[in-house]
């Protein structure tokens, strides 16, 4: 144990380089002789490409090559893949139409790649892009799921009739019907889960470089999972041997899921670099990011909750239409299915749950995982309908929830939708949240606000999520194309310092600090002697990357396993040095000692001996390093309660978030400061979804109306209150650290809490996210709510 170990709010090691401008992001990297790629993008949402004339562009100054989809096809390069096959109600695999890295005959969303120019400078590449002439036959597009499913709607792909990717179901339909048949009360709700643009601070970027001497391709990419990207590129897109491809994801400035996926641009760079035998670089600008980074959410849902007259939940049925966009992105199919419906039991003992999900193609940017990925959508359904039911039954929303919580003595708890919850204390969290939010004092605050012409509301969200995805065998049986373990390697140097190699990737989460704390704690090495290495397939043996709040629960567990192996070997060396039996050696506080004696050797001496093995066990290999893989036994289930309190200006419709309480149970916490930061950021994104953010397409033209920060409203500091963050700790029983994951919780909990507060203030459920001043004012007009101004 050190004062830099588990449970300490150690300052982040990585921040020095970030806040002094010394980070190394992909766009900071330049390779000798590097060329620049610029894309011609479709100005139309849906069109047939009749002709592309690149002759003039090819003659422009500095232009090395101009390529179209036909050039890619001629080289027999595969399209982008979806790595998770969802089977529909009939057991048929989902429709995954071709996703060419440059469009060949049709463009299917504004921003689709039509051609690429490779030139000596970025300016020359941009100039030449403008000289490409394309003759389009413009087609009528469809951008929303409701229209796309109607007969006669424009057909996005010929091989996905009716624009249907899949019609999927989950849960026991008959049991759910039976539950509704005996219900005393049924609450119904219509919900829109608005489409979001991820907007990490650093836009996507890639450099591909080909070394003809070794036939090796090196790819620098803003990826959350370099090994997964290498696997997809090698095994599916290019058919290249993995030993000839190196993927480096250096410092990455935020991802929120959008950098999990394999994108067209990096793939084009690799193809062009290999063709031209030159390094090729591309960096997205912000407009391209809006047009091409995979979006999140975009669900239309009808849900019904069956209750007994005393408020027990009997059944939940959910009918969701999920917008996939124009193509099926890397993990898109899993998001509205296995990451969604499996969470529909929430924190409750609802005995029967049934969900139907139609995934739909439209002429919009592809949709995939975005912070929370499916779980925010599930939480939004469950927590909006529970709050609505409490209002209909005139019951206290907290009491109704507590009446239905899975009790603390019921774990492990099998839900009707496959999950086995491992641990939790849901009533404790909501009680603590109510105390911190002074729930008892709310009626007085509401009355005081009314005197100032303000409508005050309070809303709750008791969320649960499934993190640390997950046992490989389970996800495999559900259609995943990959295993979901993680790897770690701990390597001591002779002088006692340590390299830790992890297959997780940090793009803001602070792994370099948190993981070092784990190693410091387990091996008694000072934090400054530990270097966490990630993001390079040539350095890190293997990895599955970072998403779904899995890094610590899965990657951290692998590190603990590796540390255990280090200790095991260290004991043999220490036993030799102390002339004791291995069985009598214990390791504690960074020292190996012999039980019942004062003999001890520190870890550093053991490490030195391992590399300078002059006095060493005869049958033991030199060196002190260990690799470990960890495949989790179950998901982890972080849960908690958020409470939002708002005031709405009756004159303008402006909502002000005046109070926010979060009580989260992330299991064991390694670095409370980092965890709190993750909670803060997650809430900001959740408030963004509920109040400010929303991707808007023009229904007729399919143009993206929110293609810049002029129209896409990101949360700013003055949109947010000072949060009150509380923690309760129920250790995860099935991983060695007892941790559950914290990265997505805020974004999962916040939208429902905030919308419950707004609907409480307005006295109607009739409002969709984002609850902009315009929408709130419209609702107040529609429902003739008091307009203090007139």
């Amino acid at each position, binding site marked *: 144990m050190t004062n830099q170990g588990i449970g300490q709010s150690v300052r982040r090691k990585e921040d020095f380089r970030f806040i002094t401008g010394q980070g190394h992001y992909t766009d900071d990297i330049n390779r000798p002789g590097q060329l620049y790629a610029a894309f011609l993008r479709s100005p139309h949402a849906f069109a047939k490409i009749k002709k592309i004339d690149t002759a003039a562009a090819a003659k422009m100054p500095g232009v090395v090559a101009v390529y179209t989809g036909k050039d890619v096809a001629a080289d027999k390069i595969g399209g982008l893949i979806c790595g998770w096959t969802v089977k529909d109600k009939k057991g048929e695999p989902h429709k995954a139409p071709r996703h060419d890295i440059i469009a060949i005959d049709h463009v299917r969303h504004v921003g689709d790649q039509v051609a690429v120019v490779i030139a000596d400078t970025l300016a020359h590449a*941009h100039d030449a892009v403008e000289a490409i002439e394309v003759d389009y036959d413009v087609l009528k597009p469809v951008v929303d799921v409701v229209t796309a499913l109607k007969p006669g709607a424009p057909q996005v792909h010929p091989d996905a009739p009716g624009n249907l990717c899949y019609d999927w179901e989950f849960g026991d339909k008959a049991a759910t019907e039976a539950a509704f048949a005996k219900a005393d009360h049924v609450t119904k709700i219509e919900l829109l889960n608005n489409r979001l643009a991820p907007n990490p601070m650093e836009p996507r970027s890639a450099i591909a470089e080909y070394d003809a001497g070794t036939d090796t391709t090196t790819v620098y990419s803003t990826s959350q999972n370099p090994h997964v990207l290498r696997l997809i590129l090698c095994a599916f897109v290019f058919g290249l041997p993995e030993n000839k491809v190196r993927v480096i994801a250096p410092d990455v400035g935020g991802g929120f899921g959008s950098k999990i996926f394999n994108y067209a641009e990096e793939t084009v760079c690799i193809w062009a670099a290999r063709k031209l035998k030159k390094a090729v670089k591309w960096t997205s600008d912000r407009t391209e990011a809006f047009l091409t980074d995979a979006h999140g959410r975009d669900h239309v849902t009808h849900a019904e909750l069956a209750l007994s007259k005393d408020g027990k939940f009997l059944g939940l049925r959910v009918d969701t239409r999920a917008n996939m966009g124009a193509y099926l992105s890397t993990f898109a199919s899993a998001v509205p299915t296995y990451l969604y419906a499996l969470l529909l039991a929430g924190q409750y003992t609802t005995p029967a749950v049934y969900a139907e999900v139609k995934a739909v193609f439209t002429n919009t940017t592809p949709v995939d995982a975005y912070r929370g990925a499916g779980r925010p959508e599930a939480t939004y359904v469950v927590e909006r309908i529970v709050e609505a039911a409490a209002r209909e039954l005139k019951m206290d929303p907290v009491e109704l929830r507590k009446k239905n919580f899975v009790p603390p003595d019921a774990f492990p708890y099998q839900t009707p939708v496959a999950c086995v919850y491992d641990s939790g204390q849901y009533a404790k969290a909501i009680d603590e949240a109510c105390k911190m939010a002074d729930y008892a004092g709310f009626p007085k605050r509401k009355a005081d606000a009314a005197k100032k012409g303000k409508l005050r509301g309070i809303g709750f969200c008791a969320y649960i999520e499934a993190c640390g995805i997950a046992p490989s065998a389970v996800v495999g049986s559900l259609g995943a194309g990959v295993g979901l373990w993680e790897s770690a390697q701990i390597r001591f140097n002779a002088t006692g310092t340590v390299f830790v190699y992890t297959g997780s990737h940090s793009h803001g989460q602070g792994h370099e600090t948190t993981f070092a704390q784990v190693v410091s704690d387990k091996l008694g090495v000072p934090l400054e002697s530990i270097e966490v290495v990630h993001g390079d397939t040539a350095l890190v043996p293997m990895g599955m990357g970072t998403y779904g709040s899995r890094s610590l629960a899965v990657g951290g567990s692998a590190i603990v396993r590796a540390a255990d192996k280090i200790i095991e070997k260290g004991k043999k060396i220490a036993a030799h040095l102390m002339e004791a039996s291995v069985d009598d050696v214990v390791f504690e506080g960074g020292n190996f000692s012999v039980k019942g004696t004062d003999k001890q050797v520190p870890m550093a001496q053991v490490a030195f001996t391992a590399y300078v093995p002059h006095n060493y066990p005869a049958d033991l290999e030199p060196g002190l390093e260990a690799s470990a893989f960890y495949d989790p036994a179950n998901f982890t289930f972080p849960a908690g309660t958020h409470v939002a309190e708002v005031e709405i200006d009756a*004159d303008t419709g402006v909502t002000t978030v005046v109070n926010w309480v979060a009580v989260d149970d992330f299991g064991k916490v390694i670095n409370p400061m980092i965890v709190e930061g993750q909670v803060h950021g997650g809430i900001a994104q959740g408030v963004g979804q509920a109040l400010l953010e929303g991707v808007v397409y023009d229904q007729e033209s399919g143009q993206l*109306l929110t293609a810049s920060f*002029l129209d896409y409203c990101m949360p700013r500091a003055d949109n947010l209150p000072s949060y009150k963050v509380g923690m309760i700790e129920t250790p995860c029983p099935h991983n060695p650290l007892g941790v559950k994951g914290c990265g997505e919780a805020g974004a999962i909990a916040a939208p429902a809490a905030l919308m419950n507060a707004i609907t409480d203030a307005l006295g109607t459920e009739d409002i969709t996210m984002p609850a902009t001043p*315009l929408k709130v004012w*419209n609702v107040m007009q529609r429902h003739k709510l008091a307009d203090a*101004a007139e």
Partner: protein
Amino acid sequence: MYAFNYHRPTSLADAAKLLDGAEDGKFVAGGQTLLPTLKQRLAAPSDLVDVTGIADLNGIAVSGGSVTIGAATRHAAVAASAEVKKAIPALAHLAGGIGDPQVRNMGTMGGSLANNDPAADYPGAVLGLGATVHTNKRKIAADAFFTGMFETALEDGEIITKVEFPVPKRAGYVKFPNPASRYVMVGAFVAETAGGIRVAINGAGPCVFRHKEMEAALAKSFSPDALKGIKTAAGDMNNDIHASAEYRAHLVGVIARRAVQAALG
């Protein structure tokens, strides 16, 4: 961005000459609108003539009953000026609320007025105070300056040199920002001046305009309540994803009342 020639003259005469001699020249001051346009390749001027190096265009002078501000004066300078804060606090407040610190330290009053973006702040003050716009050729009254969306009375090659604001008895400016861009969605500059009550509404319509009905009501009683019941026609309002014409028309009433309250202090 396309290539262009950049000039930074130190006199008005040189500036006019450089623009005259350019194939397709443009004046640039703080560049807060022009530079993003160039970066997006939406404009390709042959020459940019930067007027911020002309000493005559910079500075703030308060004398007698007026505040005169050079056209190339940055918003931040207006916001921070003790003299402006004393003479016309509403003007300093308006300048201090434009964009963000970066914008305020680059953007200029002349640039904002010449561009006449419907969502800009300064047109509200100029029209609301009945200011006079001085150019290298003439003086233009505020009521004649703003002619339409992104349109002004300025002729080709005409440079705004300064703006003369009469000091009002009292004035107030309140804006409702667009939630995303934080540009003005509805703004109201209300002033009691020697020439009478003036109410300028910016952001709401295609061009800043005076609200005559509100002016008449405030002339009778300078109070927020005097504006109650005054409707603004939605047909004259802008309409976009952030605010419908009806919502903007409603906000004109709310924001004007708040501006009157601000003027009353």
